């Protein structure tokens, strides 16, 4: 199988995976009690009506009296036509809610991701090149500090120092700030810093240990013997093989951080992004929105994994897909 075919097969597989996940989600939703129906029953009871009749009406209105397969087909159709329904907790269409939240999340998560995947391995390799020197210890200390300190706590402390005491950054997030403006940089610098310090540690440590393996390898010795400059030697002969195992875990790690830490950071810095949207959707039992954000994360994971596999071939020419 050539590279083109492999990519095609992987994309098809991605579609199958997303279908399986949406099907499981549908079954879980179908089995769970619907809060809207509970609400209708309560309303009816409060108004002296008949709760069971209200439940029937509500079921009919929402098409829940249809057979399961009909509902499933409707569900799948609306998923793939982007008709994801109405978010009750935000009073707007789910797709609009997700796009809006994504707009604010992207503004800090793109710089965050870029900085993490560039700075992490760089500092790691630098650390390995200067192993057990004071530079290595500083870098390692920094990595462990960032990894150990809880993001939300670090965020509050930085906000206190730079926002309240020195007043160099605003406390509240201004949604009307233009994306490419100094104002936006000022209000995003702390969340990005907090997130980078939180995520860089693991990447840095892995790349440090990986590259330690390569810097004494035969090909590195050969390069040195041929008079290759240290910068070039590290960039081409250490960094590149280091990135291969690293990239297998990167997407998963970043996704986990994305959901977990971005919520807390968004709460602390008041950013109306995807983390808060997902959390609020969950606690307010806004099923349409929960489903929507699940799909977004599914999509990111599936595409991320696909890209990861493709990046292998670029990083490591020994991997090819010809024999598959």
């Amino acid at each position, binding site marked *: 199988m050539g590279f083109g075919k492999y990519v095609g097969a992987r994309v098809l597989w991605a579609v199958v995976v997303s279908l399986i996940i949406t099907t499981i989600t549908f079954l879980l939703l179908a089995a769970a009690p619907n809060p809207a129906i*509970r609400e*209708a*029953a*309560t*309303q009816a*009871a*409060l*108004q*002296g*009506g*008949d*709760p*069971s009749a209200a439940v029937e009406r509500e079921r009919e209105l929402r098409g829940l009296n249809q057979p399961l397969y009909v509902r499933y087909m409707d569900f799948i159709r609306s998923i793939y036509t982007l008709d994801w329904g*109405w978010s*009750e*907790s*935000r*009073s*707007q269409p789910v797709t609009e*809610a997700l796009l*809006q*939240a994504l707009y*604010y999340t992207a503004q800090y998560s793109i710089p965050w991701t870029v900085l993490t995947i560039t700075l992490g391995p760089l500092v790691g390799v630098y650390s390995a090149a200067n192993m057990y020197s004071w530079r290595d210890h500083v870098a390692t200390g920094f990595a462990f500090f960032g990894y150990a300190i809880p993001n*939300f706590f670090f965020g*509050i402390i930085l*906000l*206190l120092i730079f*926002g*309240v005491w020195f*007043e160099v950054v*605003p*406390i*509240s*997030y201004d*949604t*009307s700030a233009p994306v490419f403006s100094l104002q936006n940089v000022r209000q995003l610098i702390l969340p990005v810093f907090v997130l980078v310090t939180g995520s860089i540690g693991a990447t840095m440590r892995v790349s440090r240990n990986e590259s330690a393996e390569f810097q004494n390898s035969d090909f590195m010795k050969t390069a040195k013997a041929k008079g290759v400059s240290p910068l070039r030697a590290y960039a081409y002969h250490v960094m590149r093989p280091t990135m291969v195992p690293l990239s297998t875990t990167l997407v998963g790690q970043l996704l986990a951080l994305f959901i977990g830490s971005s919520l807390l950071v968004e*709460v*602390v*810095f*008041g950013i*109306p*992004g995807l983390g*808060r*949207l997902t959390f*609020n959707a969950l*606690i*307010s*039992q806004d099923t349409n929105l929960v489903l929507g954000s699940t799909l977004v994360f599914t999509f990111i994971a599936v595409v991320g994994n696909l890209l990861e596999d493709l990046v292998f071939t670029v990083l490591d020419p020994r991997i090819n897909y010809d024999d598959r």
Partner: protein
Amino acid sequence: MLGIGGATALAGCSGNGGDGGDGETGNGTDGDDGTDGGDGEDSGTDTSTYATAAAASFTTLNPIYNDENGAGNAIARALDQGYTFNADNEYVPLLYDMSTEDGEVWTFEVREGLQFSDPYGEVTASDFVYLIQEVHQGGWASSVSATYWTGVEVEQTGEYEFQATLQSPQLLWPESYEPLLYPIPQDLLQPYVEEEDAEGLRQDEELLELQFSGNLGPYVLDEWQRDGGTQYSRNDDYYLQDADDLPDVFNEAPYFESAEIQVLGEQASRLGALETGEVDSAAIPPERVQEYQDNDEIYVNQIPQPYNEKLSVNMRDNGWTTGPGNMFRHIPFRQAMAAAIDKQSLIQGVFRDFAETHFTWQPRFSNFYPPEDNIPMFGVGDRYGSEYARGLAEDAFEQSEYEYGFDGETMVDPDGNQVQLSLYHSAGQETEQLMGEFIAQELGNNLGIDVSIEAIDGTRFDTEYYTTTDFPTPERNEEGEVTSVPDELVDTVDGEEVEWTSPTATNPGPRNITGNEDWDMEIVYGLNTFPRNPLTNAVFFDGATGSYNPVGYYPEFDAQTLFDNARQASSEEELADALVDLFVNIAEEQPYIMLAFPDSTVGYREGLEGPIENFSNGWNLPAWRYEQ
């Protein structure tokens, strides 16, 4: 903004935020915003924007469907409601004046000169009548105010006048907030009414974005950023500028060029924003009040509230999980619990003295607070302490068919094991957690009960423990009249057979009908005590079948007759007299173990004029301004 912050007050139940919050004083009655703050002048920020912070985002800004206090404040910036109450607790007409002779027929006079945005024209009586008859009473829309208008006959009697006839006289009808209406254009509602399209009405963009608000609010809503907050600009045509029946200060209101409400979920962020002048006010947790009182740029107001802190004890079958025979059902036992908890120490230790003691179902500032000589004051003075509480508990043991007792200092069940009870509080609420620990300690020291404290999410506690929708329902004929009641919905209360004809999630039936999970005690929720119209408390105490009774309380006094007598009163004085017996009995029976009324402590930027240390705080919000 003048109007009433949210109809939520009527729901009776408030998440017991304790310290959580947006600075909203949250009396649920006055569109009052404790949160309110704008940019302070001292720190060099401009005073042209009135900025406040909210702790949670808004579910909807559709006035017909909003039932949240926070969103009520956000709507109020751009859309007034019918009336409000001033600092002296007097009715202040905004959109309409209300008058009555007998409390049964009420005349609404709509103010002239009220304008919707184009193309809807002037606000007239027909807009209100249409809203009431076709939406609230229509039976299809499930609007928040629907229950308030059930059985009320409404008739338009002039271009700017309509009448409402109640089923029985209610002298304090305005004080119940039930006749409080938003102005909504008839032409906007019509297509939904014709189609009976509740979903369409709920999702209507003009309603959600308040695009029809015309001159009806001090500001115009520019943007609602979900999870981010709302932004407004000054409404130059605000109708109260021309009102001659209000203080002159309204002639130029509002005094800010713009307004905003920022959603800042983290308390530290809200307080930081207050300190730097990014917002003009924020709620201050009791333990940090002193710090802000010492800050030259901020002043702190202590605002009395009608929301209580109480300990619910579960008298239903899923309560008293420690052994047989639910002791919470015996009045002396509940009194013993009230007597075992030192209210003064609770207030000093947990609320840092920013709270009042709570003995009966009214706060002290209420006009209906009964004479204190009549009320048993459990938990203070002679009625506090181990010996006294144990005496009461012994009385309760005698009433029980099971052999509970004391083994030395320890309360033991019939098998001789120590009585162990669970106490739930909201996860992440520090004040609540402290209160829970204090209660556990007091019940341990004074009654020998082993209390375990559990943190839980408020929504989960509500759906799985406190309420249930899984209850039997009576059969009804086509007219909706009850024809037969299942046996599960019948119980003997105080020697009489009682039927639950309208079970609700918050009172799903007799004590045998319960939530999914067992629980003994909770401090998750605080309740409103409705000081402006105490008759509203009928939802809690009007017999065992009251619509809000998650704890399964069966009054052992004739609550229904006392409420009926109070309803017959022809003056406020008569009403106060009629209510004395009711409040004395509630203090005696302790349906909930009443503990304290925490004040709302709100910090404002120095120089902001308008906030008052009164339950009506915020009634004149459009007239708030910075000293020149």
